[in-house]
C-alpha cells in the first residue's frame, strides 16, 4: 500500500475530493498547511510597514491506496488540482507498511 499525499490550493479541495470519490477512493485526511515554494508570496502592510509573507495557505490531502491504484490516483489529482499556474502544488508518495482500521482491527487492504 502507498500513502499519496498532495499539497494543493485551497479552493481546489472540493474538486479533488469529488474526482477521487469518482474513482472509488473512500477515505482521505486533510491538513491545513503553509507552503513555501516557487510561488511568490505577497506583501502585507501594517501601519505603513511592509512585510513579505512567503508562506501561503495550502491544504495537504493524504490518501492511502493499494499499490495498483497509485498511478490512477496520481493522474486524478493532477487533473483535478491543476490550474497551470505556479503554486499548483506537489504530490509525494510514501510506502505504507501497515494500515489498521481501529474499529474492527482489520489490517492491510481491507482496512483502507
Amino acid at each position, binding site marked *: 500500500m502507498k500513502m499519496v499525499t498532495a499539497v494543493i490550493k485551497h*479552493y481546489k479541495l472540493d474538486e479533488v475530493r469529488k474526482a477521487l470519490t469518482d474513482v472509488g477512493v473512500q477515505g482521505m485526511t486533510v491538513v491545513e498547511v503553509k507552503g513555501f515554494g516557487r510561488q511568490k508570496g505577497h*506583501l*502585507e502592510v501594517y501601519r505603513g510597514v511592509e512585510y513579505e509573507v512567503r508562506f501561503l495557505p495550502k491544504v495537504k490531502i493524504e490518501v492511502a491506496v493499494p499499490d495498483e491504484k497509485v498511478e490512477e490516483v496520481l493522474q486524478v489529482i493532477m487533473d483535478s488540482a491543476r490550474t497551470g499556474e505556479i503554486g499548483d502544488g506537489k504530490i509525494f508518495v510514501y510506502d505504507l507498511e501497515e494500515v489498521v482500521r481501529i474499529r474492527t482491527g482489520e489490517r492491510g487492504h481491507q482496512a483502507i
Partner: protein
Amino acid sequence: MLRVFLLLTVAFIPSVASGADGDINAADTTWLLVSAALVMLMVPGLALFYGGMVRRKNVLSTLMHSFIILCIVSVLWVLWGYSLSFGPDFWMIIGSLKWFGLRGIVSEAAPAAPTVPHLVFVMFQGMFAAITPALITGAFAERIKFSAVVVFSVLWVTLVYAPVAHWVWGGGWIGEKVGALDFAGGTVVHINSAIAALVAAIVVGRRKGYLEEPIVPHNLTMTFLGASLLWFGWFGFNAGSALSAGHLAALAFTTTNTAAASGALGWTFIEWILKRRPTALGAVSGAVAGLVAITPAAGYVSALSSILIGLLAGVLCFLGVSLKPRLGYDDSLDVLGIHGVGGTWGALATGLFASTAVNPAGANGMFFGNPSLFLKQLIGVVATIIFCFVLSLLIFKVIDWTIGLRVSEEDEIKGLDLSQHGEEGYSL
C-alpha cells in the same frame, strides 16, 4: 486652497452660544445626542453582523465597506448631504444647498425638531444617511473593488438617499402630499437600501463558486455581536425618531424591543419546524427582520400589534431568504431578503395596524377603519422602489463602465483582504 477653505470656515461658522438656549430642551437634547451615538454604533454593528457571515479571506474588506461609508457620509453630510435632504425645499423634490457646509446653522433650534439644537438633528440624521448605503454592501460583499465602494457611496447618498429622505421627512411630496407614515425610515432606509442591493447583486454578478461549493460564515460569534449591537443601537434609531423624550419615545422603545424579540422567535420557530433545527444565525437574522419591520411603525402601533408585526417579519424574511437560491442573482448577505421583505412588510403593516388611539399625531390603519392609509403606504413604497431602482442601476452601470465594479477572478480567489487591502484578518 487653504485660504479659500479658511474663508469658507470664517463665513460659515456657527456660534454655540449666540442664541439664547431658551427654546432648547436639555433633556430632549440629551436623548437625541444619545440616540445619534447609538445609531453611529449601528454601523460597526452592521459591519460585524456582515463580517461574520463572509469567508475568512474577506472579513476585513467587509468590515471596511461599512466603516469607510460611515466616514465618507459623515463628511459628505456636513458638506452637502444635510442641506440637500433637509434644506429649504424646492418643489417638494429636493432641498437647496443653502446649508452647504452647515453654513447658517447657528445656535438655533432644528426646524424639524424645535426643542433640540439644530446640530444635534443634523448629526442624528447623518447617522441614518451613513447606515443606509452600508446596508447595501451586503449584496456585493466578497467580490467588489474597494474603489468602487468609495465612488458608489458618494454618488448614491447624493443622488438617491438625499432626495428620498427629502420626500419623506424633509418637506417633500411623500410626507407632505401623500401623507404616508414612516416613523423611523422603513422606506428611506430599508426599502431604499434593499432595492439598491438587488440592483447591485444583478450588475455585479454572482460570487465565484456560488451554489457550487459551500460558502459558509466564518465566524458566527461576530455576527451575533453585530446583531446585538444593532438591536441596542436601534433604540436610538426608532425611539430617537420621536425627537423628544416622552411618551412617544417610550412607545417606540417598547414596540422596537418587542418586535425584535418577536422577529427572532418567528424565524426560530419556522426554521425549527421546516428545517428541524433552530439556528443562531436564524435567531439573530429574525431579530433584525423584526427591527426592520417595526421601523416605520414604531410610534404608531401598540405593543400587542408589534408582536404580530415582528413574528410575521421573522417568518416572511425566513421564507424570502430561503427562496434566494432559486432566483438567479447572488445577494450575498440577503439584503433584499431581510431589508426588502421586512421593510415592505413593515411599511404595509403600518397601514394596517396604525391607530390614532395610540398616537393621535399618526393615523388609523386599515384594521382601524381607514383603508386609505394602506394605499398611501403603498404609494410611498412603490415610488421609492421605482426611483431607487432606476437611479441605482444608472450609478452601478456608470461605475462598472468607468473604474469597474468587480475584482479579477484571481483577486477574488485570493480574497479581498489581501488583494484590496494587503492585510489578513487573523493570524491566530
